């Protein structure tokens, strides 16, 4: 296991060094005090893990002279954290890591913020979604599951997910539309809890991120049916028996035309100097070049896209529009 990883890590590191040669190292701006890294979600979730990992990498590899302080502001489905950033206009010592709640929270609750109140810094990765069922269930393929769902009375199949009117429920609604069935969506507070509820057979299926369910998969407790991406996952390493991340078929190939990826990106308050943004872009490039980061990406089968500048802004803009459409179709928009 660690062998392939190490090799990949070396490869990543070499790429980064090569990239570094073409980047002007002179940075006009540097943090002069502690940098506050806001997580608009609770402790222990995916965004929190990634933020603390980044904090650990920066400390361990001494990538910044000042310290990073991770602060969780989970209130109002993350609205608390984003409002903090919105109200810190011009402060270059604040960062925020996003989930899909950057788009969904203002749409679903009417809490007044939007990504346009923030400065996009970099996309670190995209988190994948996989359709899981309990390993004891008779459904080995998407087709078998869908047939059973169509045969059962509406609402009998239960989907466990994280939060309400967020990514998991959006996918659930898409799934209902694609199959013409009715699914009962049961919201929980965190992804780990959702995975265990599936193992305990309190729900029938989940759309957990890979990292949330991988431990249960390795232990043979849950079964992946398909991944909501346009191409299969990259990880070739064997996880459960002969299966690896790359053996999970895409949902599209199984007749479910649904694609959903979640942004793990970094934003700053509006009105910060461009030099500061450039500084953080360089910082995150260095973070991405470490073996610890490579390990996290492999464990969680992340889609390792990296974007900055206008590309990133354009991507975020399109993504917001897509969420608005998805949420509108699902009837999740705030009414007032």
């Amino acid at each position: 296991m660690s062998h392939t990883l190490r090799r990949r890590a070396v490869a990543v590191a070499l790429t980064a060094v090569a990239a570094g040669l073409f980047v002007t190292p002179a940075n006009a701006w540097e943090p002069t005090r502690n940098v506050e890294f806001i997580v608009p979600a609770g402790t222990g979730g995916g965004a929190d893990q990634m933020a603390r990992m980044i904090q650990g990498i920066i400390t361990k590899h001494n990538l910044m002279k000042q310290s990073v302080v991770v602060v969780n502001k989970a209130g109002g489905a993350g609205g608390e954290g984003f409002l903090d950033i919105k109200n810190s206009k011009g402060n270059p010592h604040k960062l925020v890591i996003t989930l899909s709640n950057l788009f969904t929270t203002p749409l679903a609750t009417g809490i007044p913020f939007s990504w346009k109140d923030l400065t996009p810094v970099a996309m670190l990765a995209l988190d994948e979604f996989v359709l899981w069922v309990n390993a004891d269930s008779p459904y080995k393929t998407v087709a078998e599951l869908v047939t059973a769902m169509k045969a059962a009375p509406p609402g009998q199949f239960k989907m466990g997910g994280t939060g309400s009117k967020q990514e998991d429920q959006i996918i659930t609604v898409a799934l209902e539309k694609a199959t013409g069935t009715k699914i009962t969506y049961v919201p929980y507070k965190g992804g780990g809890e959702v995975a265990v509820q599936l193992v305990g057979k309190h729900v029938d299926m989940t759309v957990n991120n890979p990292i949330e369910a991988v431990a249960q998969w390795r232990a043979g407790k849950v079964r992946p049916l398909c991944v909501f991406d346009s191409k299969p996952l990259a990880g070739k390493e064997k996880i459960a028996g002969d299966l690896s991340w790359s053996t999970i078929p895409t949902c599209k190939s199984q007749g479910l035309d649904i694609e959903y990826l979640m942004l793990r990106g970094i934003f700053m308050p509006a009105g910060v100097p461009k030099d500061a943004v450039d500084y953080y872009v360089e910082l995150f490039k260095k973070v991405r070049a470490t073996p610890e980061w490579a390990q996290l990406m492999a464990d969680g089968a992340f889609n390792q896209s990296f974007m900055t500048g206008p590309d990133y802004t354009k991507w975020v803009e399109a993504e917001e529009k897509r969420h608005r459409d998805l949420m509108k179709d699902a009837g999740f928009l705030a009414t007032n």
Partner: protein
Amino acid sequence: MEGIGDLMGGFAVVLSWQNLLYMVIGIVLGVIIGVLPGLGGANGVAILLPLTFSMSPTSAIILLSCIYWGALFGGAITSILFNIPGEPWSVATTFDGHPMAQNGRAGEALTAAFTSSFVGALFAVIVITLAAPLVASFALQFGPAEKFSVFFLAFCSFVGMGKEPPTKTIAAMMLGFALAAVGTDTVTGQLRLTFGSTELLSGFDFLIAVIGLFGIGEILLTMEEGLSFKGKASGINPTVVWQTWKELPRYWMTSLRSCLIGCWMGITPAGATPASFMSYGIAKRTSRKGDKFGTGEIEGVIAPETAAHAAGTSALLPMLSLGVPGSPTAAVLLGGLLIWGLQPGPLLFVEQKDFVWGLIASMYLGNIVGLVIVLTMVPFFAAILRVPFSIIAPIILVICAIGAYTVHNNTFDVVMMLVFGIAGYFLKKCNYPLAPLVLAIVLGDKAEEAFRQSLLISQGGLGIFFSNGLVSTIMGLGLIALFWPALSNLYGRLTPARPT
């Protein structure tokens, strides 16, 4: 018995000078963190987590878990001395711990609290050692309906346990539920009762309510009563530990029951706070001196502390074996495991034997080290009460304010704390009990969430709460606990009135 051999291997890993040093550092830091209200174990561990990335995973988890034990010990100190619970699970400790301190028995109360904590933790570690796989599968049976039944039992075992009229208890509890409903609703994702205010997005934090209601409220009351702690006259008595220890074995039944409640709540995972409340409520019911609870009964300190520590310790089991944290601190530790490259889950016990058994061994040693450290401090802690109130009150106020600020790094919380303090003062003056209010704030939204998740699953049918043996039994216990005071009230009315 394979577990014993593995455990010995674990001790071999832990017993290096370096790891023992981390253990002592962790405990001392943890006690400090536990003493400061607001800066809970979860925050403390989160702040120190990045410092441990360069250590080996085993050393790192020893340091961090010892902070956790230390915080569990430390939470009792301010509860007993100043009626300010440093941690949510030490709220129940204030009920009898603080009256004991007021009666000049602070040393005894502290000794009882620390010793009970140790007993609870030891019991839980033994359970983990012997029955880890079995216990993990028990936890899997807890879906939303089962969780709700546990919360239901916690509320029911609490109704009518105070001296106050039941109507006032229910009024206080309802106020607590209303406060708990403020903020984002998990089930629909909508904002509730925020009235457009962005400050109220995250609702009323339990810690801030507690610091205000208990800490500030207590200071206001004391000020009114003439700027002195009631009956503070207690000399520094270095032998208080031995004297208390001679008494403790008498309460073995309470300890054992509290251990069981604690382990159950830690594993399911409901957490240390309901465990301590439930244990206190049941001890009050079953004790021969039950009617004296709240006036300074040592049993009223033993019950919640034993259960809280047993729950806090056993909460690590579902984290390791299922990847689900049983407490906020466990959630942060879980993040740590992932960063160190360890994957919590069913296979951790098989693949990372050194780490798991090293951690379990460190639970044994960490708690022994912790007990020795805190017990030697008892006379000093007790002596704090000899400082004149006019000096210590402003210090407490400042600590409360800092504590309220650290919860979310938000100055609005400090204002909210003061408002809660004033509210606490008036509630106490009007003889409304604070405990049911606090219980409802801390468990209200969790109970509501579990209730509504259950109804979603059952598509609206209440039958789900009696759909299998496990949930029916717990609900049944809850109903018995609920009607017990009504029945004993009725019985009390039929017998001649006693002056109380």
